[in-house]
Structure formats: structure tokens, C-alpha cells
């Protein structure tokens, strides 16, 4: 059975144009997840006090982007007041740029196979800008992940998954409820 499957996969891979098709699929996947992740920062910021506490000390107007090299999708976010705003797709004059080296590395993190700390450790992410501020951003990314992903996945991708209290479950519910409208609002 395995050999049949392997042969089929090998045949598909040898089809003309397959590498381009595969790259296109990876692009769409990365782009889609980033389109959800951007608004997720706003929603988590609205409902999770730890998030707001974490960005309290950030300077106003700090802009950072997450993207894929060399010319893959990217999103830019900005700290305004006590939350983070999603500025939309593309690089919009960020102070700090965090870029995955390629689609494969990006997908490992964006599809929650691997945590961002592990991706940093494996040299999958390049950082342009202040490394100390990148650490602060990474902690916020972890808070977003903790409130966005199912518990089992959170345990896998975070080094220190938060202890879930009733209040945390309620906040997570609010995040889920607010996410779809936020994504739609940014799409239209």
C-alpha cells in the first residue's frame, strides 16, 4: 500500500509544472493564514488583558511585519494606544521585519506544526531591526497563538502554555466569536 502511495506521489511530482503549482498552493496558504493572523492581533488585543499588559511598555507607533522571503506575502501591524492594529498586506515601513526564509519554513509555523521559538532556533526566521523588541513581539505572537489555537496544539507549539482558567476560556470564546467579523471587515 505504501509503495503504491509513494509511486503515485512520485508521479504527481514529476508532472510538468508541478513545482510551480506547489509553490502557488504554498503562497495561497501562507497568504490566507497571514490574512487571519493580522486581524487576530486586533481581536485578541480587545479581549485578552495579558496582551494589553504585554504591549503597555511599547513605544507608540511601533510597526512590525511578518512575511515570507524572497517575495512572498507579508502583513504589517502597528501599536496604537493599548492595542495592535492590522495595517494590511505588504510591508508598510515597518521598524522590525520578521521574515521566514521560504514557504516551507513559514508553513511549519503558520500551520502550527512548530512554535515561533523553535523556528528562531532553527534559523528559519530572519530579523531586521532591534532584537530586544523582536523578543517582545514574539511574546505577543505567543499570546495570540494561545488564544487562537486549540489547547492540544497550544501545548505543542508553545514552550510554556498558559494555565487555562474559566476566565481564559471565556476570553478565548470571545476571540473566536470576534475573529470572523474582523477578518471579513479587513477583506472588504
Amino acid at each position, binding site marked *: 500500500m505504501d509503495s503504491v502511495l509513494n509511486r503515485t506521489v512520485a508521479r504527481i511530482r514529476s508532472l510538468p509544472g508541478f513545482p510551480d503549482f506547489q509553490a502557488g498552493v504554498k503562497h495561497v496558504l501562507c497568504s490566507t493564514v497571514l490574512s487571519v493572523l493580522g486581524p487576530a492581533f486586533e481581536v485578541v488585543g480587545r479581549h485578552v488583558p495579558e496582551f494589553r499588559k504585554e504591549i503597555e511598555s511599547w513605544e507608540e507607533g511601533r510597526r512590525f511585519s511578518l512575511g515570507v522571503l524572497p517575495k512572498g506575502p507579508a502583513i504589517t501591524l502597528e501599536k496604537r494606544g493599548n492595542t495592535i492594529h492590522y495595517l494590511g498586506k505588504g510591508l508598510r515601513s515597518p521598524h522590525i*521585519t520578521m521574515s521566514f526564509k521560504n514557504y516551507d519554513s513559514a508553513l511549519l509555523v503558520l500551520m502550527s506544526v512548530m512554535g515561533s*521559538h*523553535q523556528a*528562531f*532556533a*532553527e*534559523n*528559519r526566521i*530572519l*530579523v*531586521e*531591526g*532591534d*532584537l*530586544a*523588541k*523582536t*523578543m*517582545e513581539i*514574539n*511574546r505577543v505572537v505567543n499570546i495570540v497563538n494561545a488564544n487562537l489555537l486549540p489547547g492540544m496544539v497550544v501545548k505543542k507549539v*508553545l*514552550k*510554556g502554555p498558559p494555565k487555562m482558567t474559566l476566565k481564559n476560556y471565556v476570553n478565548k470564546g470571545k476571540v473566536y466569536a470576534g475573529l470572523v467579523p474582523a477578518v471579513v471587515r479587513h477583506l472588504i
Partner: protein
Amino acid sequence: MIPHYYQHFCPVKILSGHNAVSNIPYEMDILGCRRAMVVTDKGVVDAGLINLVREAFADSDKEIACVFDEAPPDSSNRLVNKLAKLFEKEKCDCFLAVGGGSALDTAKGANIVISEGTDDILSLQGNEIIKKALLPMIAVPTTSGTGSEVTKVAVIYNEEKNVKMAFVSDRLYPRVAVLDSRMTMTVPPKLTAATGMDALTHAMEAYTCLQKNPIDDVFARAAIELIRKYLVRAVENGRDEEARLGMANASLLAGIAFSNSMVGMIHALAHACGGVCHVPHGMANAILLPHGLEYNISGIPRYIAELSGMLGGSIEYMEEKEQAMVTVSLVKNLLGRVSRISGLPVRLRDAGVTEDKLPAIASAAINDGAMAFNPVEVSYDEALEVLKKAY
């Protein structure tokens, strides 16, 4: 356990021996260089170490074009710009950095400015941002601890913004590292102890952090075994050539390991102790090492347990956590022993840290880049707890 992905890179040619400095002109020839800019500090000049380097050039067609001896403890953007201008004025074609981490960082910083053709080094901070090939650099360490001669990092202080900027790039590796026992002979016992414990921290964190991999494990193991054999000897008798060369090699091996595997919470806390209370880096690492290892036992007991064998402990019949505590105890014993000989403090309170500064240190530590590579998550409260234990 084999990691599912890792990278290892070290393009540095290594010369090690009791008169290794003599080979520098020949290495310059191989690199196609003729005029070296020596970057060092006043302490190194006063100790007569630059004379040893000058002697090496006496019968050579290569020359020392200029000696820049103003490398401060924290290299700054103003200074690297000044050095870059001097380098161009003197028509030098390579850097010869002689000193501790700051002299090497100063040379690396000036090298970035010259090669990238900019006077705004701030725009290049981050990892792998430097795109242009740097000029050749030969590194001669005069302490055995930082491992800067084989690392891809430079830390430069930004005077205008009052922050330390970190530059990480494969292009920052020196081309040649020269380990000469004579260059570390004059280091006093306390500094020998602190830098030796710094090297031990590099090796132990490289062996236990997230980027741990089979190649760097080999370097880390070799470093720990050399430190076990030579650190006490070097602290007891600074003129012991074999011990000095052994420690220089240990520092280099640990440097290769941590430049690839990176370091974790102990370094993050030590950097913060330096930033907030000006505790020397090696001293802070020495004090925090056993406490950091103890904290990480909850996540990686096996790796910490394995370290005990390298430090000379028994590795039989114990549970992992129990064996890991043996490692912590062996590190404490080593620290205690070098402390008794040299006067190196073993508590933060004896190193100039006051209790009211601990929250500020914890706060700075959790934003340190090294914290990302620690195998166990460290929150502000947990960092503060570790600092209180070390206090």
C-alpha cells in the same frame, strides 16, 4: 535525539600553540593582505602583549600600519566610525584584533561600516542583514572566555539612543583565530576564573538549548572536559602554559558551539545584570550558571544529567533529575573552588547587585534575544525567582 533541522557553520582557521602569534604575517600573506590595523585596548598594550605581536612582524614584509588602542569595555557606534575612517586613511587591508570581546567587537563593527559603505550602522542591526563580504580579520584573544574569535556576533553600543545593538551574521566570523598561551599569561586569577566560568556557561548552554545539535555537542563536550582539567590550574598558577593554552582552546570550542547552538536564560540574565548593575559578563554567568541549570531541569533533565559525566561525576544508577542535580552540585563545587582561590563572588549581592534592582534585571532579561533559545519558558516572575536564589 537528532534534531529534525539544524545548521552549523564555522569558517575560521585556527592556530593554537605557545608561539602561534609568529604565524600571523604568513596568514596575512595567504589572505592577500599587507597592512594590518591592530585594534586593541590600553590594558593589552600596558601588559606588553602588542610587543609580542610586533616581534612577529620584525622579519616579515607585512606591516602593522596602525595600532588603535582605544577599544572601550562597550564598543560604540561613534568609535567604530572613527576606527573605520582611520583604517581608510592608513590604507590598511585587514584587521588584527588583539584583546577581549570588546576589541573584537570594535573591529567587527568598523569592518561592517567599511564594507557596507555606511556610517549608519544602526540600519544593519538584526540577523543576517549584512550583505557584503567583510574585509579579512585576524583575532587574537587575550582572555579565555568570550569565544569572540569564532563567533558571528558583534554588540555595539548606540550612544545617541542609549541601547546596545546586536549584529548577527555569518559574515562576521574572523578569518583566522590565533590562540597563543603567552597572550593570556598576565590575566589575573579573578578574571581568569570569571572568563573560564563564562566559557563553561557557553558550553553548557550550547549543550542544553533549543538549537542543540550533534556537531555542537561535540565541541561543547570537548570544551567542558578541558575546563574541568585546566580551569583550576590556570587560576592557581597563571604562568602554567599548558593550562593557559588548554583554557584558550576550551573557550574557542565553547565559542564555536554557542555561535551555532546559541545560549539561553543564563546569558539573558547575565546580560541584564551587566546592563542594569554593570556586573562583568563572565562574573554574572559564573554566579547564575548553577541556578539557571537548576531551573531548566524541569524541561530537559536528561541533557543536564549528561553534563555531570563531562565534569567528572559518576553517571550510573541515578534517575535523570537526581543526576541533573549532581551536575548542578559539581558546577557549584567548581565555582566554589575557583572562588576560594581567586575571590570571585558566588552571589549577586557580592558582585554589586542590590536587591531593589532585581525586578529591573528580570524585566530586561525576558527581552534578551538569548531567552528565545532557552529550552524552558521563563516569565518575568520566574526570572525574578532565579535572580533571588542567586542573590
